[in-house]
Structures are given as C-alpha cells and as structure tokens.
C-alpha cells in the first residue's frame, strides 16, 4: 500500500518537476512563462502522435520536445523580442495549444480516439536497488524520465549558483538593463532559457502520454503546468525547493488514487480538487514574492 502510494507520488511528481525545473531556469532569467501548460499539452499530444505514426518511442520523445520548444519559441518572440505583457502572452499560448491539439486530435482520431494508444515506455529497474523492501520499486523501478528528472535537480542547482552561465542568467533576471550594458546579452540568455525549458516541458508532456497513460485525452495536462508555476514559487526559486514542492504536489495527486481505492465516504471530486486547493493553501502561506528575481515578469525592451 505504502509502496504503491510512494511509486504513485514519484510518478505524479515527475512531470511537474520537469516542467518546474524548466520554469525555474526561465524565471531566473526574468521571464514569467504562464504558457508551460500549453507547451506541456503540445508535447503530450505531438509525442503520442509521432509514436503512433512511426512506432518509435524515441521519435515520440523527440517530437514532444520539438512541439514544446516551438510553443516556447512563440512565447520568446512575444515576451522577449516584443516585450509584451508576459501573463497575457502565456495565457494565449495555453488557449492556442488547447485548440490546436484538440483540432488535430479530433481531425485524425475522431471523438472517441480509442485506437489512439501505443505501447508505453517501460520502466527501468535499477538492479539490486529495486529489490529494497518497501521503497525499492517505488524509487528504483521507474521510467527513465523519472531518473532524468531527479538527476537534473542537483545539476541545475549547481549550474545556476556555481557557474558563470548561471551567474549571467541570474543577472539577466535581476536587472536586464545592467546585464545588457555589460554585454551579457539578455535576449540571448532568455531565449536559451526558454528553449531549455521547452525541452523539459516536452519531456513532461511526453511523460503524460508515453508512460503511465498511453493515450491522449483533451486537456490531459489538467493544470499541471500551473501547478509547476506554484512549485517554483513555493520552492523559493531554487532547484532543491522545487524538487521538494514537486513531491508534495505529487503526493496530493497520488492521494486521489490511493484514497479512491480505499473507498471512503468522501466524494471523489474532493480528491480531484485536492492538488489545486493545496496549491492555493501552500501559496497563501508561502507565496511571498520576496525571493523572486527582481525583473521577473517585467517586459524589457533593449533600445
């Protein structure tokens, strides 16, 4: 029971973590990308489509990343080069992605889409580690994407705080005019951050359709992108905090299945709503913007 819950938690946390890590990098560079939800959804859909048509999971992963990167590129043009209002631009991306994936989905697979399934990615058991009682399968018998996600946490933490690149990124997020005056190239840094985040969002979306759910439902991302935004805030804009917060929200989502299986008198809608309510509650206590990069969300136009 505990094992299943733990495994579920980690599985649920992974797409959020991947997306949130990408958003962390982007927000450190000063851009508020509300469009993660759209990028993730696009990744989920186009990854599945590519796998379905080609039979290759690898191609599917590639397609996921490409689709999400494309959407992030659209946001980059708007938010970085044209310096528009980032919230509105991101929301537009979400609406667009919902529409595009819906239109293509229904066009090619009709309303039921029951044939739109694939053989999902298998989990990879990490040898003897997977045999540890209680936590073995939960922690060490997961999809490759899970290992990747958690391996990225220390790597990204290191890059942001201990490399020159990370320093330049943070400078762009603190005071873009000063960074440009020093020749750091704010537009370049922000574009790069968005592209990296695109890959990560794509992988997050791919996780949704290529691993435990091997099909596509419209709106499958179900707000995970927005949860990822909260995770960055609650994690106080650092990678370790993001990891912890992702696990927290993953647990809330896992609770849905766990408690439903147990069968309580509490209506199932409560569990479906739980992650969203939790997000609000946690933000209410930890939502302060004090640690946010100073220039976050401010449109910046290089003259």
């Amino acid at each position, binding site marked *: 029971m505990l094992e299943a819950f733990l495994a579920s938690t980690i599985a649920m946390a992974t797409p959020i973590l991947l997306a949130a890590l990408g958003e962390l990098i982007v927000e450190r560079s000063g851009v508020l990308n*509300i469009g993660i939800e759209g990028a993730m959804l696009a990744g989920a859909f186009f990854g599945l489509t590519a796998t379905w048509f080609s039979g290759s999971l690898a191609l599917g992963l590639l397609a996921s990343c490409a689709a999400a990167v494309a959407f992030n590129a*659209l946001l980059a*043009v*708007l938010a970085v080069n*044209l*310096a*528009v*209002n980032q*919230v*509105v*631009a991101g*929301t*537009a*991306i*979400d*609406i*667009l*992605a*919902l*529409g*595009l994936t*819906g*239109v*293509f*989905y*229904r*066009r090619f697979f009709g309303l039921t889409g029951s044939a739109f399934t694939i053989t999902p990615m298998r989990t990879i058991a990490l040898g003897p580690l997977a045999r540890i009682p209680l936590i073995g399968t939960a922690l060490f018998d997961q999809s490759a994407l899970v290992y990747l996600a958690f391996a990225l946490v220390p790597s990204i933490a290191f890059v942001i705080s201990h490399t020159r690149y990370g320093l330049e990124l943070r400078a762009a997020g603190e005071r873009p*005019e000063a960074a440009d005056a020093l020749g750091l190239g704010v537009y370049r840094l922000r574009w790069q951050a968005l592209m990296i985040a695109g890959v990560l969002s794509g992988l997050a979306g791919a996780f949704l359709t290529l691993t435990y759910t091997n099909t596509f439902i*419209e709106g499958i991302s*179900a*707000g995970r992108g*927005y949860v990822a*935004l*909260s995770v960055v*805030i609650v994690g106080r804009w650092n990678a370790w905090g993001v990891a912890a917060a992702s696990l927290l929200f993953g647990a809330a989502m896992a609770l849905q299945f766990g408690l439903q299986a147990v069968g309580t008198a509490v*209506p199932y*809608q*409560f569990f*479906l*709503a739980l992650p*969203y*309510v939790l*997000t*609000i509650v946690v*933000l*209410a*206590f930890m*939502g*302060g*913007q004090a640690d946010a990069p100073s220039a976050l969300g401010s*449109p*910046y*136009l290089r*003259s």
Partner: protein
Amino acid sequence: MNARIAAAARPLAALVLAAAIISLVLIALGASPVAVAADLWQGAFGNWLATTDTLVKATPLVFTGLAIAIAFQGSLWNIGADGQLIIGAMAAGALGTALGGWPHPLAIIAMLTAGAAGGASWGGLAGWLRARREVNEVISTIMLNFVAAQVLSWAVHGPLMEPSHALPQSVVIAPSAQLAFYFEPSRLNLGMTVALLFTVVCHLGLFHSAAGFELRALGRNRRASAFFGIPIRRLTVLAMALSGALAGLGGAVQVSAITHRLFETMSPGWGYEAIAVALVARLNPLAIVPAAIVFGALDNGSQAMQRADAVSPVLVNVIQGMVIMILIAFDAMATTGMRTALFGLAGDARPSADAVAGAGDA
C-alpha cells in the same frame, strides 16, 4: 490623432491576420478555408434564428468580457472568470429551485443577485489572496477554476442532483425564475438586455467614478498609486470581487434563460475566450459588446463548420489564442514604450530609448 485611428484599427488587423493564419492551419487539416468561412458565416448570420442565437451565445461573453476588462484595467490578471461564472451559476441554480411562488421580477432579481454574490465571493477570494498573502492571482484564479469545476461536479452528482438520479444534473429552476424568450423559437431573451445595462454601468464606473479612476491608476502605475494613498489592498479585493460578480451574473443569466438547470459543464471556456474579447475591445466596456458578438458568431458558426467541414469547434480556441497574440504583438511593434505595449497608446509615448538616455535628457 493618426495614432488613435491606428490604435483602433489594430484589433481589426489582428482579426484579419488571424484569419489568414487559420486558413493555413485549415489547409494543413485538409479543409478548405473558403468553405469553412462560408459555413461559419452561414452558421452565425445565415438566417434570423442563427443571428439571434449568435446574440445568445455572445451574452455570456459580454459578462465575462466585462469581468476581464475591469480586472485588467487594474492590472489584475483574472484568468478565473470561468470558475466565477460556474459558482454564480450554481448559486442561481440552487436558489432558483426554491423560487416557486415568487413574482417573476423578484425571482429574476434574486437569481441575478445570487449569481453576482457567488461570483463575487470566488473572485474576491483570489483578490484577498493577492492583497493579503501576495499570492499571484494568475495562479490562484486558474486553480479556483479547477476547484469550481469539481464543486459543480459534486453538486450535480450529490446535493443538487435531480431526484430520479438518472443524470448528473440539477432540478429545473422554478418557472418564475426563468427568463422567457422574446420571440419563440428564437432564444433571444432579457439576458442580453441585462448585459447591455451592465456594459453601460461598467463604462460609467470605470471612466466617470473616483473608484474607477483609482483602479485605472493602479493598473498603470502601482508605485505612484501607493504614493498618493490609493488604498491598493482594498481596491484589489473590491475589483476582483466586482470582476467575479460580473462573471457570476453571466452564469446566472445562462441558468435562468438557457439551461434552466445545472449540468456538469456550465462553461465551454468563456472565461478564457473573454480574454480575447476584452483585448479586442481594448479593455473598453462599450467595445466589449461588438467584440463579444464577433466571438459569439465564431462560436455559433463553428457548429455548422463541424457538420459541414468536419473541423472541430475547438478551432475557435486556436482563433482566440492567435488573435490575442497578434493583437499584443501589433501593439508592441507599433509603440516603442514597453509600458504601453499592452494598452497601445501610441504617438505621445516616450520612446524606450529615453529610459537609457537618463533623467532629464530629451
């Protein structure tokens, strides 16, 4: 003056460009843009019935469009109009079943009040979270959308469910609480009139009242507003509550006039569509009505499009997203000041290079 005309023409240009891009998408889908356009038009304005239905479909967009416009004027990013509409609809839908013996006008007023109150509480909650706990309202309102959907689902499966328990829907509201259609079989009803009334109220409030002035000041320059003692926190909560109330009114009107009961889904995404509507209207309440009619026409026409061209009505989402992006891109390109990128006040805006040139220099 030239700049003003250019600014007003941008929404039109954005719609045209969006149409051009959508055509490409349609071709990629194997559909004919011309056929789709014709079917859209036919579905929206082809005959008297279609036209009135367009107006009916535009009505919730007017309410949510006003909601967005009010909030955005204060730089409060209310993405939660859907959730606020749902809660308003629920309040009205629940109350409506108990209004059996009431005189019609009172029943309607009660419905609308319930809707407004429901929406106001949902919006006000997000406003309070922003004002008191610094919670980013984009996230909180979107989260509340999801929560509202679940609350509605629970209600129609549970406490409000109709007695036969056959379908997830609520009891039909009392006839006195229902808005009648003017000319059957067209569905035109008092709802649009109420919407127009609130359009005028919003316009007057926004541009002719002291509170509206404070809201607009807050939206344009928070620091200066704080400096001059504008009560930012109180204004945030009130504006979000008002915004929610307008969305909630839309929900109440829907229940009262069209659905007469609650279903699992009460909004096909009007709260998001309203963002496109509000931006096309440049956040001006008076322009919301024509903008809502345009998008209502698209919504209405898309049903015909689906039947005739096998293109999913979800295409309108693509149109909405595209229109928003094109519009804000146009505004940003036409002006050089970054603060004016969204509001598109051209001509007199300082070029951004001024910020580089330093204080006092021309």
